[in-house]
């Protein structure tokens, strides 16, 4: 994974290894911006498999997540058959519910494309009903379509489920998965990630940014910066031509790392970036 510029710690590496070997979904929880979604992207690059992403939201239903019939084309087909005078109604019905009229949504696509990495992003935003049919798909990697039969995956896709934990996801779903709680990276790893991702970044700047980020996380803010914000911040500083983090540049680019006005004021007032 390091080849793909993703530096995982021991726990996450073990989790990914087991998910691949056991064919189990990986359930990642952690604060926003610790690299949950990024892991799925990396796995997809490492395995050279397409990433199929399903962003969850309230009211997400089977027609959006599993499959849908292409009604317009079905009707057209029906009219065309009428026009040429096809007689057998039964045969016509079979034709209409054919695979070519089926629109595969992310979950079905993940079973059909092989190999695939399926990312079910922010499942805590979906509702209970969605959890129920996701559980059904994840428990045996099949989808049954009444008109067509059961579609099964020859090889189960690699599944990554992420949650920001704004609500408790049902235990039955978690039980199917390997559970991993992602923490903010430690200082050394954060420096390594910055250097890896931003080749233009000097070691001095990376160390200063990582130290400042660590301090911001300790400061008990509304939204402590994740690794995604640290990367943005370092990039913003590089764009401003910084070679080291001085208070003026830090204040000017604060919007890249702190997204709440209260947090920015708190940090400036208490001089948290003064001696970084």
């Amino acid at each position, binding site marked *: 994974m390091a080849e793909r510029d993703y530096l995982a710690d*021991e*726990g996450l590496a*073990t*989790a990914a*290894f*087991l998910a691949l*070997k*056991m064919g*189990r979904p990986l359930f990642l*929880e952690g604060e926003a911006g610790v690299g949950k979604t990024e892991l799925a992207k990396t796995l997809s690059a490492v395995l050279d498999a397409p990433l199929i992403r399903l962003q969850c*939201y*309230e*009211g997400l*239903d089977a*027609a959006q997540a599993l499959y*849908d*019939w292409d*009604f317009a084309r*079905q*009707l057209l087909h*029906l*009219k065309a058959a*009428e026009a040429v005078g096809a007689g057998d*109604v039964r045969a016509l*019905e079979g034709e*209409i519910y054919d695979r070519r009229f089926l629109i595969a949504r992310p979950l079905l696509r993940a079973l059909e494309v092989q190999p695939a990495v399926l990312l079910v992003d922010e499942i*805590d935003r979906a*509702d*209970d*009903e969605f959890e129920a049919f996701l559980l059904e798909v994840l428990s045996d990697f099949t989808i049954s379509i009444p008109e067509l039969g059961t579609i099964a995956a020859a090889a189960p896709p690699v599944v990554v489920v992420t949650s920001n*934990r*704004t*609500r*408790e996801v049902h*235990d039955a779903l*978690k*039980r199917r998965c*390997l*559970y*991993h*709680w992602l923490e903010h990276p430690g200082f050394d790893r954060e420096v390594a990630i910055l250097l890896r991702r931003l080749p233009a970044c000097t070691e001095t700047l990376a160390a200063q940014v990582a130290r400042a980020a660590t301090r911001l996380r300790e400061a*008990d803010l*509304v939204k402590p910066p994740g690794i995604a914000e640290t990367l943005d911040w370092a990039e913003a500083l590089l764009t401003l031509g910084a070679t080291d983090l001085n208070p003026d540049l830090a204040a000017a680019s604060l919007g890249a790392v702190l997204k709440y006005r*209260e947090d920015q004021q708190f940090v400036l007032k208490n001089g948290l970036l003064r001696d970084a």
Partner: protein
Amino acid sequence: MPDPRLRLVSVLVGFARTLRAAGVGADHERTQSFLAALERLDPARERDVYWAGRLTLCASPDDLPRYDRCFAAYFTGARAGPRSPRLIVTVTRFTATPSGGRGEQDPDPNVLPATASAVEVLRNRDIARMTAAERDEVHRLLALLRASREMRRSRRLAPSHGGILDPRRTVREAIRRGGEPARLYYRDRRQKPRRVVMLADVSGSMAAYADALLRFAHALVRSEPRATEVFTVGTRLTRVTGELRHRDPAVAMDAASKAIPDWSGGTRLGEELRELLKLADARGAVVVIASDGWERGDPGLLAAQMARLARMAHRVVWVNPHKGDPGYQPLTAGMRAALPYVDELVAGHSLAAFEELADRLGGLRHA
């Protein structure tokens, strides 16, 4: 001579059992996954055993410190750390018969012979000034409380007589009838109960009401288990929703009192509220804060967090037990800081007050 593999399995299963005893939900299925995971790793390496167990046996960040403690105790022989002292809530089992329905031959001396008028008097009495037997009766009535819930329109669509055209069903029917859309089908947004997030202050100044508040919270969780979150606040914030899900009030209260580490401390409401906004999704929810507003921390911080909360929540209801006092003025620093952001300030000192609160949550009587 026992098979070494069998010995290993029994050691690992024993570990899962230890975790279960410590309150981690390491059930049979998870234990199986644990063994399966270790088959792909090296069971002789401590780190491999650690991660295989953590990935398969834990299910929430709350489990992790318990897991680490058990792992150290079980595999390295270290002793588990001292448990924080806690106050035990007195728990009495009740039979769920409506009050007044059992008459004179009631064999249980702990239950007051409840006549309609006696219940009426009890209903309006301040819980803090009750005898143990009276309080038991109130708890019994609280256990019977059915809290209705305000509804909101969900984003999920369901079949209905009007609303948005449902192309899926309409066309499916049309195809069945040879392509003629003879009947149009509709879908409309469904009604869902609005979420309630309750924050119950269990600090020292609220000690007399904490038990009743938790019982009220239990009634809320029981009536809408999937749309309620309950936290307690003292010196730290504790999520007790899971503990209160148990149907039997005695079991639920027992579990909750074990989970709360800081009964009867001081309150730092501002900080806890900020923590709450990280943990729970207050967006669109009815937020109930039950506290007397004795803030030990900075009232300015509390005001700032209340302002954030007011922007996110659908409604903020503050329950203050002292509001029941006719001469009550919101004078505590915390209460004064929070008041501008509170939609409703209600009493929470008696059974009648709790019943009224339950009605308000149903959106029945709110102004």
